[in-house]
């Protein structure tokens, strides 16, 4: 009877949600606490420090700006892919989801360039507390990006078979993956000014 678990796809009338969506929101709540704690740590360390460097004196702002644009665009294509499924046009879905995955790859490539430039200049996490928090926050965000990319790639490739067997459930999955993706995007939108600009 495990397949008979209610509201995996349908919406429960009195809560207005299905299980997957509620689960995703809860997961994101915990993610907020995770990054929130790191940001809180950032504030505490910065307030306690006498010589906190300006982010732009160490970090590469133009590259990060480019990455911000890339990520925001990927969020847009992610929405479009979901919207295409709602309009039942699977080909468009493929296209937009493919674009999302590609944009994520671009983001990661740029990030790698940034990291290796730091290492070339002998700037490591152990160099200063600023660099420690920079590397930790961006690496943790990077792990989320990689996770999101894996899920999106799966939904674009092998996972897309589900569109034929259970289109509604598949659409829900894409929606949930989208929620996660927008969250990852949002974290970056906080990270960028906090680390690079302030």
């Amino acid at each position, binding site marked *: 009877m495990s397949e008979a678990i209610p509201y995996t796809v349908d919406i429960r009338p009195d809560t207005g949600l299905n299980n997957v969506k509620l689960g995703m929101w809860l997961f994101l709540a*915990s993610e907020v606490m995770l990054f929130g704690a790191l940001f809180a*740590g950032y504030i505490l360390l910065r307030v306690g420090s006498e010589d906190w460097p300006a982010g732009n004196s160490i970090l590469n702002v133009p590259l990060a700006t480019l990455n911000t644009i890339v990520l925001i665009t990927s969020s847009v294509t992610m929405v479009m892919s979901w919207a295409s499924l709602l309009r039942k046009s699977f080909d468009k879905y493929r296209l937009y989801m493919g674009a999302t995955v590609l944009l994520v790859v671009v983001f990661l490539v740029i990030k790698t360039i940034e990291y290796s430039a730091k290492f070339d200049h002998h700037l490591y*996490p152990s160099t200063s507390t600023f660099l420690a928090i920079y590397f*930790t926050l961006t690496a943790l965000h990077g792990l989320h990006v990689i996770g999101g990319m894996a899920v999106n790639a799966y939904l674009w490739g092998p996972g897309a078979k589900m569109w034929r067997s259970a289109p509604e459930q598949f659409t829900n999955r894409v929606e949930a993956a989208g929620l996660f993706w927008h969250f990852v995007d949002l974290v970056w939108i906080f990270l960028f000014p906090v680390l690079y600009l302030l």
Partner: protein
Amino acid sequence: MGENHETTHSEEHHHQELGFWRTYVFSVDHKVIGIQYAVTGLSFLFFGFCLMLLMRWQLAYPGEPFPLIGKLLGDSRMPGGIMLPEFYNQLGAMHGTIMVFLGVVPLAVGGFGNFVLPLQIGAPDMAFPRLNMASYWSYFLGGVVMFLSFFVPGGAAQSGWTSYPPLSVIAESGQTVWLLGMVFLITSSLLGSVNFIVTVIQLRVEGLTFMRLPFFVWSQFVTAFLLLLAFPPLEAAAFMQLMDRVANTSFFMPAGLVVSGQLVEVSGGGSPLLWQHLFWFLAHPEVYVLILPALGIVAEVIANNTRKPLWGYKSMVYSVLFLAFMSFIVWAHHMFLTGMGTVMSAFFQTTTMIISIPSVVIITALLLSLWGGSIRFNTPMLFALAFLPMFGIGGLTGLPLGLAAADIHLHDTYYVIGHFHYVVAPGTIFALFAGIYYWYPKATGRKMSEFLGKLHFWPSLLFMNGIFLPMFIQGLAGVQRRLFDGGVSYAHAEPVLFLNKVMTHSAWGLAIAQLPFVINFFLSLKRGEKVGSNPWQATTIEWLAPSPPPHGNFANVPVAYRTPYEYSVPGQASDYHPQFEPDRRVAGPPDPGEPEAAPATA
């Protein structure tokens, strides 16, 4: 709903075809996972208890060789059978970690929550069965990692369960393994808590509104929120400590730190207090994670065995919600002595006093529930009853710790150890025993022996107090915690040193008192009295399912017709009116032909 009937049968076939591995090991059934959690949790409780028995022996006979096992543990731990201070520290840190994260929480939440909660809300399983399995295995891996940490060079973590830097950052490699183990455990509890919350919100059967939920479900629901929101900051802190240890960063390391006469080579600029804030932001809510499921179990057992509705069900529910909320803003009462300033202290002292109110409301409601009941003193009830004063002592002794001025004297003494152990050992652990005796028949179809149960209960109650009551006396006399010699080297400890022997022998007595339980647990699997679906004549929905419940739990999807504890309702045929039974005729004498007419009460 008709559809569900049909699938039940085909599913059962399916179930039979799953084979051994998928039925008992990599199962996605919430009951199997619950039992896996419970058995693993009990094993870790036993392991953590053994570590503590070694410690207690050392405290009573410091510097003397250990009889029998002394030689077995090797020269890096006990050269010549005499315990090294480093090994004592490992035992202490791992006792705390194992008891909290690998013992009590997995048993209370993973075990009872998984097994009972879906049944109580009439659900066929958890909302995400595969996530549930992943949660168990992540916990299991975390346990394996923690266990193996004893065997890395330098041994297991030595910095206490709190892992305060800078000591933890400069500690041996066991600390890194500890942090990795914590990441697995945190992942596990994250997966579990999402699952619990979704299950409660989405899978309640028709008619089971929030105010009709059994109190146990409420307690698990709120606990899940605490786990969901409090653990991630510790995860963040664990990452940072890992970075400090592995990548040589300075999140928690101040500049100019001198260790053993040598300057530590770090960039500096970090704050050891940051760790304490992040740690206690988790660990105070964690205290409620340890206690709320216990309160839930006790509430169920008390309602059932007083044959009365819980007194003040609604105020209990609101209290739990308020308590959960407040538990996020009391954490720095663990840090009064860090020099964080009087304004901060005043704030956290105030919130701490406020949070004691809902706890008192809940305990008072449970006490008042006893009033005028026709109490059945069976084993689950004895443990539940003992929980009340034991938890009461634990709670009341906490108040002086919450007041900054009094805490200056009491902080880091055995008084603290006594205080929180009253909460978690004769408190929570007793409640967990109550739960095991109470739901064992549901899980196995057989009752545990009452005689052995009582043989387990009375000595346990005695020895628990023999261990923990003297701790208050030692603490008030100023004996510090985490001393590997039990205070022998301090003159002010001299008058209370004899208590170390009292406590140690009580601890070994407690160990022996668990034998009837172990025998009972295994023997009853084969020999226990066979029971039907509702042996305690209880009212909540789990007692509708067969004992043990099949895959999918209920033959027909149940409906909740009423509030959870309709015991001894005037004018009813029997003294209990289950949630899952439709209304009987209200007026007139009971219909003798009615199938659910009362079985004769013993």
